[in-house]
């Protein structure tokens, strides 16, 4: 059972990801709507994987990724974003995200991506 932290400023997206995750052995243990919250919740719950939106108030995705990796270098982060700007997405990967998905997300693509990211964990 893998524990997931969902970070997105849209409650629709948060709920969508939660609904998709329920079907597999994934549990959404917390949801955050901005970067600050995300960092806080990450430190508290230490989830197995984080889905991260990039455009958020208070602290954007890139910054948040940097902070989380700073606190835990082995954190597994999957970016889920509507941005199509390659450079920004590359920045996100450079800061430590393991991969990204474009919105709109479909169920199978999300589940596959989560599996792939979980697989990169060094045990």
């Amino acid at each position: 059972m893998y524990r997931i932290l969902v970070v997105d400023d849209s409650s629709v997206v948060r709920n969508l990801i939660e609904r998709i995750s329920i079907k597999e052995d994934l549990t959404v243990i917390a949801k955050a709507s901005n970067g600050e919250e995300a960092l806080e919740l990450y430190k508290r719950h230490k989830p197995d994987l984080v889905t991260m939106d990039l455009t958020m108030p208070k602290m954007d995705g890139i910054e948040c990724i940097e902070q989380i990796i700073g606190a835990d270098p082995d954190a597994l982060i999957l970016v889920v974003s509507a941005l199509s700007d390659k450079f920004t997405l590359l920045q996100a990967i450079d800061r430590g995200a393991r991969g990204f998905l474009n919105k709109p997300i479909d169920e199978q693509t999300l589940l596959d991506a989560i599996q792939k990211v979980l697989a990169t964990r060094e045990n």
Partner: protein
Amino acid sequence: MKENKPVSGLKRYQGMLLSFVAYTLVVVGLLYYNYRISQTSEMIGYQNDIIGRLSDDTIMMHSAANEVLADALRGRNEKVDQQAKTITDTLAGLQLYFDALERGGSYGDLGYDTPVDALTNPEHIKRLASFNNIINNFKLLWTEAFQVPEGSEQASIQSFDLTNLSRAVDLINGSMNNIYDIYIEDTWSENLAQMAKYAAYSRNIMIAIGVITALYFIVFVFYFVRRLGVADRKLALATREIEDIMETVKEGLFLVDKELTVGSQHSSQLKHIIGQDNIANQKLEQVLGKVIPGDALESTRLFINQLMNKKVVPELIDTLNPISRVRMKTNFSDPERWLSFNFSRVMDQEISRILVSVADITKEVELERRLEEAKAKHDEQIELLSSLLSSDPHLVEAFLEKSRKTASYINNVLREEGYDVRELKRKIDIIFREIHSLKGEASAVKLSAYVSLCEVFENRVQVLKRQPDLTGDDFLSVAVYLEELEVLNDRATTVFSRLGGNRDHGTAHLATGMVDNSHGLDLLNSLAQQAAKRNGKQVRLCSENTSHLPQNVQQPLQDILIQMVRNAVVHGIETPEQRQQVGKQKEGNIRIRFAEKNGQGVLSFEDDGRGIDFDQLARIAKERGIAPDNGDGYSRNKLIAVMFASGVSTVKTNSEDAGRGVGTSIIQDRLRQINGKISVNSQPGQLTRFVIAFPM
């Protein structure tokens, strides 16, 4: 491909090593065996040595004993004494030898002790035992004969027992044959034979080692060296295959290591594709820098670094490849070229390198462009077709007629003499007006193909209008657009006539001079409704007696009315909410009336909107730098003139409907055409009214 990979390191030589180890073991084993044999042989030698001594001593003892007896019988007692001692000593010595042979030990000679093992041959042991037995018996008898009385150490001359002495000597004499022949001789020669056998073994072992070595060497050379030859051939074959692949493959392929250094091999097509040949061992940035634009280089470096990162999932960043489709850096005069780069990880237990593949996709890009163009053209056609179909055919026909006329008129204008700046400016103004007007009508008839063309045409002309200097060359672009217009006219006319739209209702015009002007009205209505929709307003247009408008003034009046309708909808009439607030009905009203009076035609245009905003006009006039009349104010007439003059518009944005301030100059132009005069009446918040009078 995996099976052909050459086996690494030791495994390759496993067979060879094993055989060598086997050979060594065999040889060492043989040598050891040889050593043991020679050890044994040496031991036998020592044993024989002892037997030799036994022999010698026994012989000596034998003769000595006989002499003692002889001397004893003759009474020579001193000699007996001497000999007896010798024999005693000898007997002691013999015992030592027997012990050594029986139990193993050492025997001394020339100052050092030689170790000797006990006898092992059962036959020899038996013989020795028998030998020993005899000597012991002799010893007993001898001791009896020379019994030493108690307290005395030496045998006394007087005290020997002749009987025992004789018995002893008899015993020894009797046994001598056995002793020599069997106990000593046989044993001796058997030992010699054994030693000879061992020597032979030794020789054979040496020969065997020699032969084995020679055989091994031969086998080694042929078998293993041959095997290496086979392996080398396989490797050469594989290398050859790779070379062939690299020669033939269409894409440019090369490898890049962790430090982003290019490898030593690359496919031969690479130099055709990126125009560089010796890229081996250069830095990737250097190579790419000559081929792709600078900003792409930065992102590419970032991307490749992420690909090298084993924490990242390659499938989830694949689309971030910034140069999956990139325009190649070329010299200005060279044709455009497009490249596609692809990057893949090379796994070798861990990520060791990146495989870069480049393809020239210029043709594909070209094809794509052409397809898009064709599609756009196709869509345009469909668009034209559908708009021709959806609009009222009368309106469309009238419009097309106007469009042809306009094109022809502009053509003439362009051909006119007069190339000084003032003339050229005049031409530009005319062209601008005509196109603007055409655009308006096109908008009313909803022919978007015309609206688009007129827009760009208009834009171009507007740019030229603003230019302080005009030359004949500037008109080149105008000519180009004109041609496009003519082409569009032809196309539209063709399509339209095929649709069966050219109903002939022109005859009515010629007959009466009056005309059924209903299509003109439809046009105005359509225009009004569209403009209203676009501006969020509601408008109703009604007319009175307009069917009696003479034919010769219809077109110019229509042009004027179009501008008025648009201006009324955009400026004059308020939004439904605004109207309700001031107690008006939500729908604005536009009324167009025609009457004849004293040989004059009077056309009135009235809207019940907010009236003309003279303050706004004053402001704009000031902005435009128009000189005021009295003090810093403007007279109403002046402002109305300003409104009618080209370039004044009370709407700030350049919307399709109004905005360019050119509507009023069309009005001036058309008025001139029909010799008409215009007057304005406005009540703020209530209405605006234009009255056009013209001779019939």
